[in-house]
């Protein structure tokens, strides 16, 4: 959420346990004003905080002309007073950063131990240490993971103009109530990774200038997202099981939306063990022929979301997104 609308956004998000004290809001808003002025951003979005054992990391995203491409990330370790630019993680660090054990500490120079064994061994040998990275690199990887995997917006909030620039849609009127609890109405705020037609094929009312992002209905396994309406049926909350602590909200029929992450900064890799399989009637919205799309795995450096880049950990061994065998079978039966 942009810092200008942070007060309103936090009001909506409060029922998910996300509250900031008045002192905190004032501090963040003033420092973000300065940050925006110094860096000539169009928007500065407050993304959330990662709770460490000693200090918390607050992190924001400055947005330039283009919503997807022109982004820069900053973090703060003193409750949002001073902001430091976050270095972009490379591809190896993203993998390592998401495999780190334990909590963040709150010290960017501390070492974080990962679950990775050096030199691609199968087990850790006597005398070897687990691979460690700096906590700042882990922070970068975590934020990249959050922005790539769970940062979402309602459909129509962003618009792609003819010259390819992605901007805020001034005519966005909100998702109507009928569609607001459907996964197809929420899009990943990232450079699209799916083939461009995967998303529009499933829509009868597709619009090329709106449906250019990946829908969260394609995320696997089915059930890794939770959409809930509040008791007054005005606001929809989306929560991800992969990143517990992430909440996105959208007030139906209004152009108010946003998300925030407040959590431990540890990705929950256990999602497949935590959910029931979906009923047979529901299928993943994997479009036929989507397999032709090739992930380019050979990239040396993955960039922050917005700079593009594919994340190898999201895909199966052959470079294609992982699809459960049952679903593949169902699709074949459907043929």
């Amino acid at each position, binding site marked *: 959420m942009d810092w200008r609308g942070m007060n309103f956004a936090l009001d909506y998000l409060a029922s998910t346990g996300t509250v900031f004290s008045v*002192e905190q809001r004032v501090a963040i808003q003033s420092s973000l004003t300065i940050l925006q002025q110094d860096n000539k951003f169009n928007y500065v979005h407050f993304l959330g905080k990662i709770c460490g054992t000693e200090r918390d990391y607050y992190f924001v995203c400055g947005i330039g002309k283009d919503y997807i491409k022109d982004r820069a990330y900053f973090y703060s370790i003193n409750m949002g007073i001073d902001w430091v630019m976050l270095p972009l993680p490379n591809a190896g660090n993203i993998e390592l950063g998401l495999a780190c054990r334990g909590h963040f500490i709150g010290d960017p120079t501390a070492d974080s131990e990962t679950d990775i064994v050096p030199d691609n061994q199968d087990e850790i040998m006597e005398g070897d240490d687990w691979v460690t990275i700096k906590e700042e690199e882990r922070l970068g990887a975590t934020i990249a993971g959050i922005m790539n995997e769970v940062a979402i917006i309602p459909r129509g909030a962003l618009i792609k103009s003819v010259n390819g620039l992605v901007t805020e849609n001034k005519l966005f009127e909100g998702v109507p109530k009928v569609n607001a609890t459907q996964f197809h109405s929420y899009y990943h705020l990232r450079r699209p990774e799916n083939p461009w037609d995967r998303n529009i094929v499933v829509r009868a009312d597709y619009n090329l200038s709106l449906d250019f992002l990946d829908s969260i209905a394609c995320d696997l396994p089915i059930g890794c997202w939770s959409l809930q309406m509040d008791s007054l049926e005005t606001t929809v909350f989306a929560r991800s099981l992969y990143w*517990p602590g992430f909440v996105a909200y959208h007030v139906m029929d209004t152009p108010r939306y946003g998300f925030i992450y407040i959590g431990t900064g540890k990705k929950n890799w256990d999602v497949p063990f935590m959910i029931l399989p979906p009923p047979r009637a529901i299928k993943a919205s994997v479009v036929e022929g989507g397999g032709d799309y090739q992930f380019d795995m050979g990239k040396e450096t993955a960039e922050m979301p917005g700079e593009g880049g594919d994340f190898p950990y999201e895909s199966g061994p052959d470079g294609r997104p992982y699809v459960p065998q049952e679903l593949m079978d169902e699709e074949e039966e459907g043929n």
Partner: protein
Amino acid sequence: MDPGYDANQVMYGEDYGEPAYYDEPLPEDSNYVEESEEADPDACTCDPCDCDCNPPGAQKKSIRGSKPLMDDEYEGEGEGDLGCTCDPCECETPPGSREKTMTMLTEAVEESEMVDTEVSHPYQLDEFTRAKAFFMNTSTKSGISLYDHLSDVIRKLLDERAPTNAVDFLEEISMNVKRYRFQQPKDVLQDVFYISEPVLNDARFLNDNWKQYAQWSDEAKEIPGEGFVAGGFQNLLRLQYYLEQVNIGLPREEMFRLALSIKDLTANRPYITKARFWGKIFCSRKNYYVVEADINSPGNSDADLWQPQEESQNPESVGGAGDAGPQENIPGAQATFEKAGNVVLNSDVLSAYSKTSGLPPEEQANLLPKTKAPTPPSDGGLLGEGEWGGEDAGKSPEDAEAAADFAKWQGYQEELMTKFPTPNVEVEVEIPPESDGTGANRRAFYVCNILGQPWVLLPPASPKQINGARQIRWGLTGELDGNIRSFPNFPGKEGHLLKAMLTRASAGSLVSPKGFYRGNSYPSEYEGEDDEDIEEEEESMNPPGDDKVTAVKKYRPPMDSLTNPKLTFWVHHACLILPQGRNVWWNPLRAKKRGDETEDEEEEEEDEGEEYEGEDGNMGPTREVGPPLFTPISTDVAPDGKAPWTLQTSSSVFKEFQVVSVRSNTWPGSTVVCTIKGKVDNIYLGDGQKFADRSYAPFMHENVMREYRIGPEIEEFPDPSVEEEQKWLNRLEMDELGDIEPPFVDNEEGYEEMEEAGEYSDED
């Protein structure tokens, strides 16, 4: 003029603009062609005319054409023969962008003004009318015309003067105009303002509660149970204020509704002595609000007790203290083996099988296990010779087969009787759960999904459930009856898992400043004491496993101690749940000695446990002992080796009003706040999962046990062919059995055979 005629014809054809034509007959013509190209697209970009006719006017001008031809050149050139008479434009709209049509329209509008003011030229009028006519073509699909649509778009832009940079959003505006135009006209039913049922029920509930509790008249004081929980009731709005200082909490509206709902819960239940908002658990479909209650007489609360929906499967789980129901559905290894043995060694099964062995009934009886082991077949063969009529037994191949069968059968029988495999798993002793209101089940938890719905009391958790919850990771859905698919299998539904989670989280994360709580066995509870005295007297308070505590009134914690980063001033006020799944250790050896009488022993278990340990010495399992109550949290160890607790203070500016909070890192979402005035409260806002240092890996299952040998009762034999079957039936016909089933006949041969057989039987 013939060559020129041809040239013009080509000019409108495909070879338009080829220079060779203009050289010879009409050298001036090239000039004209360019001009007419420029003038034409004003009206319509499509080819104006599909017909073959030659526009005579154009030709005339082309002849004259030394000077550039403008539109007004047409003036006076003879109205009659202007252009061809065919339809000006038969083609569809060129697939141009909307911007182009927009510019065309604005030009058309300008033109129309010109037409109005001046008496314009007929040709001009004609072009305009043609363009307008094209625009006003009604779409056969949607029923509107482009003219209407564009004017609507322009009107919308002019009316709203929004958005800025409207040209960037032109497509969207156009789409919106279309969308609004095609909204269904609402009929009477749709026109009624509709509020969905849950929202309406919610509002009704709130309104009713408001009316019930908000008026401070005399009648309001007569509400049953009013004032009963006055001592134990929380000021949730004040709590919310403190929570907000440390950046957690819920909306104030929600807190108020929660308070109202808790009041509604406690008002009609006098057995609830204290109700505390424990926390909110965020699940994937609905959320849980949890209230921790102290119930003085557990039997009264059965009306609210949650019952799993599928009562037929686990009726025992409904009961109060027992609650060993769900796991009985999952047969253990011993039960499985017994069941298999019953099936295999069943005399019915065996006799049924023995009938298929082809033996005469007398011999069949020998196969049954009840009788003595069957005698091995003699050399002459199994079958008595006289039994089979004229056939010479013992030498025919059938008899050899039968003998082999018998040998196989006999060996199998012997093995089955002697070496039936037994499970190599130790029979687990069922650890009895602690009864409602004691030990790990001391806290009663009321949960509800939506404020205003009735609160539901969760049944007590058994040690098996607590340990099951420790071994799995399962995302709560918000539905108490939800199934859990996990390995190892969790004994129960989601409600049981929730109770186990709440119990574990309470035990792990309920902390308070030292001295705020004191044990119930302390003689003078409500007198304010100095801090030093309290510390001294805390040492010998509650028996182990009992964490009934009472808050001290007028508690004033020293700020320096509260904010000490070593966290020695903060203590647990809930007992650790032992690895056994209980607060008080229970000796499994006792169950083996005592045999079946386990149920009534719970009250005396503590003493007896010690006794048995004393008697058996090293023989018994080691006794599990938790840390005493009020152990400082500085001694805790987190699984990831980092700090298990994080201290936070609210304000860095106004230290006078500081709120201190301690956040649990092992149970993310659990926080305790303490103000400088000594108000202490715990709250949990999270998803119910304990922090996992590493990713979850399901347990490997144990080694597969030895199966019993595959015997003939499940061995598959090839089906007999028709001939074999017939032969067998023919053989049986000597007995009465042969009459049961007529021989199989499907062709003439078979029919003859049957006839023969009939004769044969007649002869007998």
